[in-house]
């Protein structure tokens, strides 16, 4: 089966997580993506040294090509030094995509934008962690991945417009604006009434308990509170004035989860989650990386992808979505850009 984006040529000149993740999505779903390692147009055919197999490179660039692209691009993912106007002059029908931290105009033009800065400026970080302690930024480079995903979305919309008009496009995505758009919409709450919520204010009926070797998150809707109490032998909580009524219970979740903790410390986390779910109580184990790699659920779903490069087999995360008629390409070690 052919990929949905078969026939489209992409020049990935980005050299960034956001740009290369966008290129990866385009490649996964059928585009021919050519990885350009230099910002210099003259070096468009440049190749890698053939030795890099870093996890980041495997994740972002598997399935992309190196070498001189055989045809002009439908999509160009700009590098940091690229001038989009110049690229549009070269390829008028192309979609030229510029992904930056804070954009190249506006009051924060050119700001340095590592992940912690993007999360700090998004409104998200102030909600992470414990009130009174420093807010936590999160992990990895998630704002950059989100920006790459946003670019993919805009590219698909612009391809549709190009079919109708024949025109190329200049697409601009800011990782900072993307991160703000992904923040819980407390900004509209503020606009509505001037109030502000942040970590410690969320009133979420949830908590974490440490089972045998792993944390489990439990979300206790009011219509499942009695079920949970009976399941754990905590019937006294049903009449305890701290927990009996919802508004007061909201203020005493830490005390309630301390009681739950006493009951479950020796429980197997998988079994405990299964038992809760069977009773209609939302729960999940907080998987560590090594645990998620061993997940029976993901294995049975055929989630992981495997590729052998140079005699070494690598386990890769599966595709983000499964299309029944135009599935994602299977990874091919021989096409690995860094191989």
């Amino acid at each position, binding site marked *: 089966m052919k990929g949905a984006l078969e026939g489209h040529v992409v020049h990935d000149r980005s050299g960034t997580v956001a740009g290369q993740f966008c290129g990866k999505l385009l490649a996964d779903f059928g585009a021919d993506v050519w990885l350009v390692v230099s910002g210099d147009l003259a070096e468009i055919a440049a190749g890698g040294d053939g030795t890099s197999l870093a996890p980041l490179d495997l994740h972002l660039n598997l399935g992309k090509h190196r070498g001189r692209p055989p045809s002009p691009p439908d999509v160009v993912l700009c590098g940091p030094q690229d001038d989009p106007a110049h690229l549009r002059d070269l390829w008028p029908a192309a979609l030229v995509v510029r992904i930056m931290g804070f954009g190249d105009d506006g009051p924060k033009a050119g700001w340095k934008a590592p992940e*912690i800065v993007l999360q700090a400026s998004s409104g998200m970080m102030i909600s992470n962690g414990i009130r009174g302690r420093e807010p936590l930024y999160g992990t990895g480079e*998630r704002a950059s991945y989100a920006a790459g995903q946003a670019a993919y*979305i805009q590219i698909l919309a612009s391809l549709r417009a190009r079919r109708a008009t024949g025109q190329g496009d200049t697409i601009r995505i800011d990782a900072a604006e993307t991160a703000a*758009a992904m923040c819980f919409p407390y900004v509209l709450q503020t606009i509505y009434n001037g109030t502000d919520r942040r970590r410690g204010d969320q009133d979420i009926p949830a908590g974490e308990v440490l089972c045998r070797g792993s944390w489990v998150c439990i979300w206790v809707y009011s219509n499942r509170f009695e079920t949970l109490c009976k399941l754990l032998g905590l019937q006294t909580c049903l009449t305890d004035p701290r927990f009996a009524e919802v508004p007061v219970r909201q203020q005493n979740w830490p005390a309630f989860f301390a009681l739950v903790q006493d009951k479950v410390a020796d429980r197997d986390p998988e079994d405990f989650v299964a038992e809760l779910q069977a009773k209609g109580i939302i729960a999940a184990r907080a998987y560590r990386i090594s645990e998620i790699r061993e997940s029976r659920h993901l294995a049975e779903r055929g989630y992981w992808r495997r590729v052998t490069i140079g005699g070494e087999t690598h386990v890769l995360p599966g595709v983000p979505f499964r299309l029944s008629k*135009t599935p994602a390409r299977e990874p091919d070690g021989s096409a690995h850009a860094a191989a």
Partner: protein
Amino acid sequence: MLPLEGIRVVELTTAWAGPMAGRVLTWYGAESFHIESPTRTNTWRSNRDKPNPVTYPDLDPGERPWDRCFTFNSQNVNKRSLVVDLKNPSGFSVLRRLIAVSDVLICNFRPGMLDRLGLGYGTLSKEQPGLIVIEMPAYGLTGPDAGYAALGPTMEMAAGMSAMISYPGGKPTVTGPSYMDPIGGFNAAAAILTALHHRDRTGEGQHIEMAQVEAAMQFIGPELIEGHDVVPDGNHRPDMAPHNAYPAQGEDSWIAVAAPGDAAWMKLARMMGGETLARDGRFATLSDRKINEAALDAMIADWTCTQDRHALAETLQAAGIAASAVETAPDLANSEYLRARGFFTPRDHPVAGRHDHPGLPLHSEIAQGSARTAAPGYGEGNEYVLREVLSLPEAEIAAILASGALADVPAPGM
């Protein structure tokens, strides 16, 4: 012309992820109908456990609180609302006929719901081969955990992210109230646009399975490939020091500062303590700074704690040092940066009033989307569907309305 004009979407969705997917499509001009239940109100329209005044404009729930909730109203701009009782044969018939004249069906409930309703892809595609159906369950449609219920925080736990976020020795931490929903929303929109691209070429629709946990795992791909557990250490990272949030002037006021290399640190050191600090051997290299990170953090915190976080961030960025105020919702509402991007659009809501609405970060010359209308009131689109979309005769409309299949207020207690 917007790129998705002429595309009609039906959303069997609730809360955030599914509606956000539909919101992206409407941003580009699609016409979307958010299907709602008269007996089980979307939690983003109302919190039955504990209605909270901060949810509403001017802290006032008004006579129709379900139309004034910031959560629902943030994710449903540009849409119509059809409140229909699917257990009522007339109601189900309305939905079935609406799907028959639509291009995309979005479902973000648990697996099996569409089949139980008789709306599974296998059934619908026989009559509508061009239809695109996306199901976006947390854990996928198959596998031992497929039936598990989930919310954003539990999905982040299951995706392996939360265990990588905590204070040293602390509990796994959720990002914001939820980070998985917008990731799921974006992924679903991306998947639908991909399928539409194929349909434009071939006329062929398809089914999409988007397991939200799996989709989010793309964002930690390198860690999954490496396969080693990440030991969380607050805001610290092995490849940068300093890298933390430091107290600033004011209550719960913070500034994030990161120095990716020795040169960045030297710039920061000179601003903080001149050449003496820049030459301090305890902090000369990354490994030195990691060894002495507690002292480094304490020293920076002493320097930042009396300063305005916004002014200091601008000063640091001007000097080439990565920094930002840890912004709050009021900061965002007043952000000159977001205003310059056109992030906010003022829209009139007939019940909630006129307010700026946050937008999407998608900028284009030929396919620029927009927020054109505020979120719909509950059941606002009922008659529009019957008259304008389905063009039903007046007698049938009267019969449907008389049957109680549609509603514009939730059932008592919902």
